[in-house]
């Protein structure tokens, strides 16, 4: 089975590359040659990826969340899977290249540096931790997709304001749809984030003797959660529109990424397993 895992690990970046190329070609070529085939490629890539993650779980007897590069692979899967569902639900097919690019980068990093850990701390075999990590990762993929759509919104907004009617104008969906996609991804990301936080707050104190509410990672995550929550409330209560919502989502995303980088690299925390 290790041999099979080795092969799939090599295969996955190429599968994502091929899918990305199909989506990119379809975006730049106005003839819509790959409108259906690109979705099939994404589906096949997702099937290979889920098989890979399951095989890893069976082979190593723990969910693939024990090192950074397993996490990267899950993140690649979560981003592309969330996009796949979004595409199926909305039938907006022109934006895939921008999202799959993230999945491709995550998977390349994962495939290059992934380690096979047979022996891991017991806490990493815990199912609640698995649920906590996976919901947090899905939450991150939600806000990543939201940020990508937010960026696309801003690019199209700028094009429309300056009356530039090129490729962006022709190939992207309307501003209203981009805003909706961005906000809905944000909303889903926020819900999953909340689930991850609830599991974390209820289970972490029992699992870690050195647990502390003043932990930098906890504070950073709570801040990001509060900012996103306030933004979502403003949208619903104060009827925020367009650019304001998008700028808010992008700011939240930048803060989330910064908080993640700072708390995992600079600060000492119990909340680090690798």
């Amino acid at each position: 089975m290790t041999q099979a895992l080795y092969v799939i690990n090599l295969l996955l970046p190429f599968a994502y590359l091929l899918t990305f190329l199909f989506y990119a070609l379809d975006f730049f070529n106005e003839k819509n040659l790959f409108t259906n085939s690109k979705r099939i490629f994404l589906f096949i890539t997702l099937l290979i990826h889920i098989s890979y993650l399951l095989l890893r779980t069976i082979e190593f007897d723990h969910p693939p969340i024990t090192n950074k590069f397993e996490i990267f692979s899950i993140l690649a899967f979560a981003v592309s899977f969330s996009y796949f569902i979004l595409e199926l639900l909305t039938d907006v097919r022109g934006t895939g290249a921008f999202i799959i690019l993230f999945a491709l980068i995550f998977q390349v990093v994962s495939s290059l540096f992934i380690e096979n850990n047979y022996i891991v701390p017991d806490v990493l075999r815990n199912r609640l931790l698995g649920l906590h990590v996976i919901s947090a990762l899905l939450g991150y993929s939600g806000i990543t997709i939201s940020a990508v759509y937010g960026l696309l919104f801003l690019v199209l907004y700028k094009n429309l304001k300056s009356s530039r009617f090129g490729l962006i104008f022709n190939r992207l969906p309307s501003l209203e749809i981009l805003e909706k996609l961005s906000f809905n991804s944000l909303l889903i990301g926020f819900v999953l984030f909340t689930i991850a936080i609830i599991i974390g707050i209820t289970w972490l104190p029992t699992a870690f003797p050195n647990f502390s509410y003043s932990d930098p990672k906890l504070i950073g995550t709570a801040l990001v959660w509060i900012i996103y929550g306030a933004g979502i409330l403003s949208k619903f209560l104060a009827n925020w529109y367009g650019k304001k919502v998008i700028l808010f989502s992008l700011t939240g995303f930048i803060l989330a990424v910064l908080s993640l980088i700072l708390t995992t690299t600079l600060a000492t925390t119990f909340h680090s397993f690798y």
Partner: protein
Amino acid sequence: MNLIGITINHNNSPIEIRESLHLSRNEIVEFIPLLKQVLSEGVVISTCNRTEIFGLPITYSLNTSSIVETLLRYKPVKETKPEFFHKYFSCGAVKHLFKVASGIDSLVIGDSQILGQVKDAFEISEDMGFTGPVFHRLFGTAIKVGKRAIKETAIGEGAVTVSYAAVQVVEKIFSGLDKKSALVIGAGETGELAAINLKDKGISKLTISNRSIERAENLAEKIHGEIIPFQFLNEHLHNFDIIISATSSENFIINYADVASAVKKRRGAPIVLMDIAVPRDIDPDVRKIDNVFYNDMDSLKIIVDQNLQKRRNEIPVVEKIIMEEMVGFFSWYNTLEVVPTIKSLRNFFDEIRNDELDKIKNKISEDDFSKIEDMTRRLIGRILHNPTVKLRELAENGNDIQQVTTKSIILKELFNLNSTNDNGKNIEEK
């Protein structure tokens, strides 16, 4: 094939001549009986940019002057010149008709209306008994070419008028117009076109404002919209997601402050302003306001030019469709010559067989007669198999109608198929 096509269109004649020779539906109905004196089948297509006459002459002559004279007798025009009338014959006429139906010969390439106009013209001729099997097939194929061009190519895609381009931009801002409200300022031709385009796109609420209240009311009635008195225009701007202005005003009728105030009242909700008037109606500085999308004629013209270029790029693809359909049409047409010949040949042999069978019917037993009957049927079937198949193949695959005609004539001559009574019955008697 002795098909003739005569065309007066935007490529070969000035607008005055095209206007003078334009035939309304009623005029076509009056004109067809005159054409019947020179044509056995025919169709007259007349739009604001072209008048086309397609027909099969009663005689085998391809003289077009009688058709042109008939037209000029019906619609006398003083300053015509021969070069205003382009003539096409046979294959050229078929190709021209297919080009017209597909929209690649239109003034605005890919014009979607022309296909309907070709259909209507054919229906008039059909109703007046001026079409036969050839024109049924010809116009059926022309309509198929038009439909394929729309379905398989991008010849009809994209906005090619400024008012439609305005709607295209609006669709890049809002996902659907079914919950949006629009205001059209100006009830002239451009304003009306913009209002109709918005209506066609399913706009939820459409309002008209015009200096002359009567014209606003007329247009509002036409598109089932509402009106706002022109003097109160600026007080209502915030109620609309889309504002299209097309008046002949010399000064701005919507200023920066008006839009800024409207956006404030809308609490930042996007507002689209399309200024399709010359000189402009809306202060272009409004584009600096957040969530305000402003476009004027110049910027919308960019979209129109891009789309026209895209349509021009599709012409070779449409021409390929035309070629495919022409091959199909002429394959069918060529079989017209051979089908009666094959039928006559088979009848000729069957008659001989029946004559000979009659002669022996009472001389042999029923059982033997039945065997001979079967044997002769098989015999004739085998004798005629190769000539039938070859002739059919030649007609279906060959593009040389002359060759098909020559072989048909030789067969008819050799077996004297034109004479119904001469099947060699009396040879023995002679």
